[in-house]
């Protein structure tokens, strides 16, 4: 659906995007992650035809953005960063404008607008001026604009940025709802979001891809992957020593009554710890298997990219 090939972008002396390639198929939600300034927005702007790539290209549903940008743009719904919308228009007039510029007229136009209003949950504010709406609603207006033509490819730049937890939940549900029928790319630096909606994640740093895999794959790279968190009623030196003595444990950290055991062998540690708990009769009040923290992987990869790019 979306095939990105060796995209590069330079702004004067700044090489912002340095050879990004990935593919997104129908049904996938790709999380596009990276620290601020890593080149996420620039990459998205090249895919959506706002900025011409310095080299490389993107194929959107078969249309090349460097040779037929208008056809490519027709296949994309785009939610730019900060959800810019015309503040002086009413919701319904704005969506009508978008429908017309996308080539719908008459009855078809009105149907499209009504459907977008319904999907983006804007029924209550359809006649309101966009400038008077709250940030969450403006975000949804922009979302409505992006899905109005039912595009096969949907690109969203930080779709939940600045929203409260309830609004984030609404937006995530909208994304999940459409996911099976579309190829979706969302950029974010909120890692919980990746776990909530993405089927795959690409992490970039300094304009390069540093990781590409499912959230579970990525978490397996974290050093807390396979760790065990154990809370006991009566903490003692003996407990820590016994845990440390396990062959599958690498090290143990204690915080009050809670012990975190980091694995040498992530596959076996949990079984070993549970067996030990049963043998010693420690009366655990909590026992938890840690899949790994995306934050750790993210930090490791993106900071690692910084040192790699800087040979000194």
């Amino acid at each position, binding site marked *: 659906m979306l095939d990105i090939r060796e995209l590069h972008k330079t702004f004067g002396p700044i090489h912002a995007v340095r050879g990004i390639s990935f593919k997104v198929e129908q049904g996938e939600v790709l999380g596009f992650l990276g620290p601020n300034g890593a080149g996420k927005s620039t990459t998205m702007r090249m895919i959506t035809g*706002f*900025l011409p790539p310095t080299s490389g290209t993107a194929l959107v549903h078969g249309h090349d953005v460097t040779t037929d940008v208008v056809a490519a743009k027709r296949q994309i719904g785009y939610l730019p960063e900060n959800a*810019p919308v015309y503040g002086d228009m009413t919701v319904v*007039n704005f969506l009508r404008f978008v429908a017309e*510029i996308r080539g719908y007229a008459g009855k078809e136009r009105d149907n499209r607008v009504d459907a977008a209003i319904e999907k983006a949950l804007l029924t209550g504010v359809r006649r309101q001026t966009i400038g008077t709406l709250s940030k969450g609603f403006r975000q949804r207006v922009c979302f409505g604009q992006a899905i109005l033509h039912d595009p096969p490819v949907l690109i969203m730049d930080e779709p939940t940025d600045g929203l409260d937890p309830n609004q984030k939940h609404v937006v995530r549900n909208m994304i999940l709802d459409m996911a099976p029928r579309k190829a979706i790319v969302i950029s974010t630096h909120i890692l919980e979001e990746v776990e909530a909606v993405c089927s795959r994640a690409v992490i970039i740093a300094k304009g390069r891809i540093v990781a590409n895999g499912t959230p579970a794959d990525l978490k397996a790279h974290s050093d807390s992957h396979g760790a065990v968190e154990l809370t006991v009623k009566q903490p003692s030196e003996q407990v820590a020593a016994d845990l440390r003595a396990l062959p599958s444990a690498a090290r143990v950290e204690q915080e009050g009554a809670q012990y975190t055991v980091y694995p040498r062998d992530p596959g076996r540690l949990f079984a070993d710890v549970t067996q030990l708990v049963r043998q010693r009769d420690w009366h655990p009040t909590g026992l938890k298997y840690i899949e790994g923290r995306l934050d750790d992987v993210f930090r490791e990869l993106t900071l690692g990219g910084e040192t790699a790019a800087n040979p000194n």
Partner: protein
Amino acid sequence: MECLHNTKAIVKRELKSYFESPIAYVFLVVFLMLTAFLTFSVGRYYENGQADLRAFFWWHPWVYLILVPAAAMRLWAEERRAGTIELLLTMPVTLTQAILGKFLAAWCFLAIALALTFPVVLTTYYLGNPDSGVIVTGYLGSLLLAGAYLSVGILTSAMTRNQVISFVLSVVVCLFLLLAGWPPVTDFLVRAAQDSPVLQWLLQAVSSLSFMPHFENIQRGVVALRDLVYYASVMAFMLFATQVVLENRKAG
């Protein structure tokens, strides 16, 4: 056809946005009052005792100097400030279509303002027996002049995200293009440069770029091809420059 509906949608939105905000009404009221005041009081329309619109059209280059940049300053500066330029240019339109759409919308708006001056025409027909041809070419010339100013205003609007800067720049550029060919100024300069043929030639070249001689030719009732070509090329050049500026600046 495809290209038409895109541009049409933009024209429609821009025109609507003039009339949905107070800008349009402030603009129209000021324009109509100012032209009426200048024509009837300062221009001594009645005292001239002639049934023509010379006193009316004479003021247009000066009224437009302030009002057209005001009507144009919002067009791109606001898109860039609000970030909606990213939305607009990721729609299935080309940059040229977007620029043309905005230009045509603003030009239509100016044409509406100009059309609303019809009471002056009615007054003239009531008072005497004017030459209809000259009135028609007068309006045509005025509309072309407005379009030329507007194309300058669109260019300066694309250069900045600040509407005030756009306005000031555009007034300065228009003022230059106006004065470069305005007889009181050119006569003075020609006299000053009497001794140097090179300077003379340079002055001629610059003054031939000015709006003024072309505006006056058409006001006299002569629609020559060269004047039409002049206006068309000014607008085409300014819009093309707008495109170049936007290509370079839209990232920032």
